[in-house]
């Protein structure tokens, strides 16, 4: 009986912990002097808590309007549901803590923006797009 209860609890925990398979790359503008980033730092960037790169340049995060990749990114990196993430940012904006996140409609727009914007950081999927003129960084 105890084993059964433990199994059910573990199953529930596993069920709620499953994330969709992630296939995204984190890209930064070439001015950004890093090759990798800790997930916790990336999370802070997309929550508006880390706003400066090590060389004191402003960080410009950009998110993508396409639901699939955005949902995977915020669940895996920020550890929030898309709805929690949106509410978090609305709270930041409407209480005067930050300005809205830059949001672009698709991956190509994100790529183009990161290419031309100093300090920019974004994410795009590993497929469907030819990545060039930006730096791809790994997430530790």
């Amino acid at each position: 009986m105890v084993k059964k209860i433990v199994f059910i609890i573990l199953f529930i925990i596993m069920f709620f912990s499953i994330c969709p398979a992630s296939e995204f790359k984190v890209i930064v503008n070439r001015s950004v002097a890093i090759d990798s980033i800790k997930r916790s730092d990336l999370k802070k960037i997309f929550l508006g808590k880390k706003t400066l790169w090590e060389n004191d340049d402003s960080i410009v995060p950009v998110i993508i309007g396409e639901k699939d990749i955005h949902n995977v990114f915020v669940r895996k990196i920020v550890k929030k549901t898309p709805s929690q993430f949106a509410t978090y940012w609305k709270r930041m904006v409407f209480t005067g803590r930050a300005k809205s996140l830059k949001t672009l409609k698709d991956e190509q727009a994100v790529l183009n923006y990161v290419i031309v914007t100093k300090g920019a950081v974004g994410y795009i999927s590993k497929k469907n797009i030819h990545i060039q003129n930006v730096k791809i960084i790994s997430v530790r």
Partner: protein
Amino acid sequence: MVKKSKITIIFCLYFCFICIPCYGIQLMDNFTVSGFLSQGYMKTDKNNWFGNEEKGSFNFDEYGINFNFSVDKLRLGAQVAARDMGEFGDNELFLDWVHGDYKFKDYLGIRVGKCKVPLGFYNGGRDVDMLRVPVLLPSCVYDESRRDISNSYRGGGIYGNITSFLGEFEYELWYGISEIGSAGMYEKGVIDAMSFNINSFMAVFASAFIENAYDLPQGSVTGMNYNRNSIVNPEDIEVANAATPGISVLWMPFFCEDLKLGVSTQSVDPDVVIPVEFDGDVLIASGLVPGDQIPFNTTGSILFNAKPEYAFVFSGEYFFNEWVFTSEYIMYKLDYNLIYEGFSPFDLSEIEAISKFKISVRGWYVQAVYEISDMFSAGIYYSEFYPDRTDKKGDKLKQRGIEAHRAWQKEIVPTLRIDFNKNLLLKLETHFINGTAQLLTDFNPDGISKNWILYTAKMTFNF
């Protein structure tokens, strides 16, 4: 009012079919505009909370628009808003916040202007409906009568984010002036509390004075007879701005990134001057004077002189996938003197004993929210509020002739939130309430019922 509500709903429905970005309108790379518009409805089965909910009320709305402009580490922003909450707000435009913000480092920024007070998790966004699942925030911590003193401050502060081996800390220290303003629920609450004191005041002095002046035996005065509304003229009440420093610290511990713990405190020093006119009759024991009563009239003012009051809020929040569990606890002490002027021919030196008050207030809630799908979220919270922690059962109030259930307010509140899209949402909520500690006598002239239900619905459009 109904016409205005209809217009609001039509606007909401109109925008329902328009795709507008979730994160505000970005006019330029460094200039964004965001806004919200809410219209609600409240109905109680008994009692009135903010005005006249027993008959149903659409006087429950909020509007706001803000802009943010940033250049490198400097950000300028402002939000203009209006609200109507029963008898309060009346949709008058006000500057909700306006400030300049400069971030030297992630661990040090400075913010100057009119800023929101970071008291508890939700105080800064208490007027913005879409930032939460419940329609009404738990009133035990986010008491509407304290909104006037804890909503915002005009001044400056520093803030930042520090990461250490213990985890991540967010802090904010500020000092400023709280522009309490008159005609708010804070003022109304002071008047309501004072009315009991005025009763005591008149009873003590009328007894002493009348018995002496009319050469009556001690104990001849049996009571007072007056209309409370004739005592206070709300238009003449003066509410002073109050100095308000404060600190807020959040801790995201290293061992659990889904956990957030916080403590925040605000000190505030409010003074209110209330003109009083007593016009009534002193009731005398049978047979001592013709008609068994003596008419009496006097005027003066009472200064509600509070010592700096420190409110502490302890907060905790835990995220578990689609679940969010939140709990907060508030404690503060009201410590004030009543200073009387005028009231000829009373001898004011005799009222020392009823001029000082010290009351410790407590409140707490636990809340669970579950995101069922992109469209539906459900939440429930339980809250308790005690305006005097030494009288949780109302025994002291009963001795003063006041109903015991004014000593507490306990609520169970289930909510359903429906997000039709990123810009439009609807909430439905019911409050099952036991106790009446946060109700005003003035709104309930026919008496107050111990057990009551509040139904609310609110529709919000935001971009």
